[in-house]
């Protein structure tokens, strides 16, 4: 009763455009700003499954903030958000240059994705904990972590609180709710769930946020995180940053036939939202909603941020080898800095002049921090962590064999 005809064949998904193609994203369904509803915190997730397939947006083409997700932030907060994004962008630019100058071994920028970390950070309370990837420096900026400390880490200089042990951008600051970044993709997603469970076990009120990229959702830890979060209703926000690319691999390879990555949550009964990651206000509003659900002990929320990695994957990557150069410009969700700027101007609380001035301000701040940091050292010169440090912190107390090795090493 084998009704099949021809032989089997393997399907291998391909991105729409490769170098040489003219990108055209008119097929990407982008919901109108204000069009997607805002469920009640305790609404049955089965009743808003559609929200995993739409895109929550607040800022419309005229720069207005519209719909049920608008209205949470004051003008001052919005201005601070804009400045944070601009700071991150300026910082990234300087560090990219520093890497080319050999001052650090490596760098990864956030270009085009600034809204996500900067807006999410504002939705948290002190004591909450992020488990970030390498592309959430915005969380630190939003938490007012000093730029100099960030640079010290990037330069692996003697001011680096982690003693130069980690690759650039693998920051850590407990005080600023930023868990030590691991280079292993996805591992920290389930740790975020564990941290949140610990908070619940302890009768605390703090919540956790896990971070993962589109490509990394394929990793096992993503599944473990969803299973544990779903079973124990952990107070955690599970963030997926879909910037369309995982190095050279387009998001369709990780996503497969599921339509969206947000849909992954449905198999676990986890409420899942999809949001315009380049819309600062939308990101903040959705983050706030998910954080509040967690805080009310209503359990996890999965949030997919739809965005675009406008730069290379890292300083080791040249994206023109695998995608059209124009793809970034063709991407339909625009630039997060320009969109928030336009909104503030439309509101009459910002201006082109103020913006130019602000650009100078943030650049000054970045340069001042850079001077301070470089006065300590860069990877190639100045004060670096001591070689003795190599042997510290393997354990709290150094065991005899390590003492012996340190001695052998001459330190």
């Amino acid at each position, binding site marked *: 009763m084998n009704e099949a005809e021809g032989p089997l064949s393997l399907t291998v998904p391909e991105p729409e455009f490769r170098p040489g193609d003219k990108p055209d994203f008119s097929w990407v369904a982008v919901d109108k700003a204000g069009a997607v509803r805002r469920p009640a915190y305790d609404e049955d997730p089965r009743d808003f499954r559609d929200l995993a397939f739409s895109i929550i947006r607040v800022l419309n083409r005229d720069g207005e903030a519209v719909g049920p997700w608008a209205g949470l932030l004051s003008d001052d907060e919005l201005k601070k958000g804009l400045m944070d994004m601009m700071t991150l962008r300026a910082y990234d630019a300087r560090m990219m240059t520093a890497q080319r100058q050999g001052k650090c071994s490596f760098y990864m920028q956030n270009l085009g994705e600034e809204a996500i970390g900067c807006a999410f950070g504002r939705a948290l309370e002190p004591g909450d904990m992020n488990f970030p990837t390498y592309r959430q420096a915005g969380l630190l900026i939003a938490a007012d972590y000093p730029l100099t400390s960030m640079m010290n880490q990037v330069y692996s200089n003697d001011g680096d609180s982690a003693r130069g042990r980690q690759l650039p951008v693998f920051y850590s*600051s407990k005080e600023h709710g930023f868990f*030590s970044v691991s280079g*292993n993709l996805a591992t920290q997603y389930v740790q*975020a769930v564990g941290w949140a*469970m610990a908070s619940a*076990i302890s009768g605390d009120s703090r919540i956790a946020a896990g971070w993962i990229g589109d490509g990394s959702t394929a990793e096992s*830890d993503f599944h*473990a995180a969803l299973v*544990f979060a779903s079973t124990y209703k952990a107070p955690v926000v599970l963030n997926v940053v879909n910037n369309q690319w995982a190095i050279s691999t387009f998001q369709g390879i990780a996503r497969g036939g599921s339509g969206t990555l947000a849909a992954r949550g449905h198999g676990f009964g986890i409420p899942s939202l999809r949001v315009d990651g380049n819309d600062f206000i939308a990101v903040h509003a959705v983050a706030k909603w998910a954080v509040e659900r967690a805080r009310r002990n209503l359990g996890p929320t999965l949030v997919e941020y739809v965005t675009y990695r406008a730069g290379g994957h890292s300083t080791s990557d040249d994206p023109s080898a695998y995608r059209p150069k124009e793809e970034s410009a063709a991407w339909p969700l625009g630039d997060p800095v320009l969109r928030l700027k336009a909104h503030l101007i439309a509101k009459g609380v910002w201006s082109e002049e103020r913006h130019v001035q602000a650009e100078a301000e943030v650049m000054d701040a970045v340069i001042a921090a850079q001077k301070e940091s470089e006065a300590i050292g860069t990877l190639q010169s100045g004060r670096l962590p001591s070689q003795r440090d190599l042997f510290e912190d393997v354990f709290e107390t150094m065991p005899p*064999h390590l003492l012996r090795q340190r001695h052998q090493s001459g330190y």
Partner: protein
Amino acid sequence: MPRRTMIEAIQNAQDVAMGADARVVVFGEDVGYFGGVFRCTAGLQKKYGKHRCFDTPISELGIVGAAIGMAAYGLRPCIEIQFADYMYPAYDQIVSEAARLRYRSAGEFTCPMVIRMPTGGGIHGAQTHSQSPEALFTHVAGLKTVVPSTPYDAKGLLLAAIEDPDPVIFLEPKRLYNGPFDGHHDMPVTPWKKHDLSEVPDDHYTVPIGKASVRREGQALTVLAYGTMVYVATAAAEESGIDAEVIDLRTLLPLDEETIVASVKKTGRCVIVHEATRTSGFGAELAAIVQERCFYHLEAPIERVTGWDTPYPHAQEWDYFPSPARVREAFERVMQEG
């Protein structure tokens, strides 16, 4: 003094730890309501509540990954992997995360946790219920690895492990759970309740991590063993009439090199016994250290008696398992040389 099986000693250690410190939480597959497939967590859920002792989904990755997050939060998870053979799905979390968190954050975040797991063969468990993966942990900087061989040590070492500020791999030789097994699978086993080494106080005490124990003093040769093999080695010593000194390492990392070196310098001969496959087993490290530090005292090559370099078989278990006879033969070879 109350007598306890190794299972009871392990259960009791966790009971004492949970009673003393609200940060101690216990979880794993079947450890909650049921109390663990080996009963090592029996009664803990009832006594301390579902939020401190609970069943988990079957995801070793999830168990360890969640525990790391909890440890970073400030709890002290003591978790069970149902069999050491099933720790591999969690190996990335153990190696890349638990072991390195303190180092990579320069102490800002730490990972005080214990990962308990039954190890070793001798129960006809075949390839997936018999493995001894200790060398896969000792190679990883940032982990401590402990293997008790008596109920007393099991409780004391487990309490020390739970109180340790760093991640500890706690390997429980399941062949010893109920009785000490004097080396011969075809002879009756003395249950712990009739054995001297099963006296386990009710109260809190610790056995220090990093200290070996000389189980049998001798002048002719030194045997380095741990877990079940301590009994196999002792049986071989008794039966061979060779005056062997049997050292129970108890902690593999950090290793008590001083006790080992002092003994080998005294005897001039060394036999290492473990159940794991030979190549790149922990015996290799022991042999390397002993020849490095006792070279001029050695009168014969160091011998390793180990599991063969094959997966762990089922029907042929007792041909795989290092027997007193194989250890005795090694003793004899080592005594003849030099």
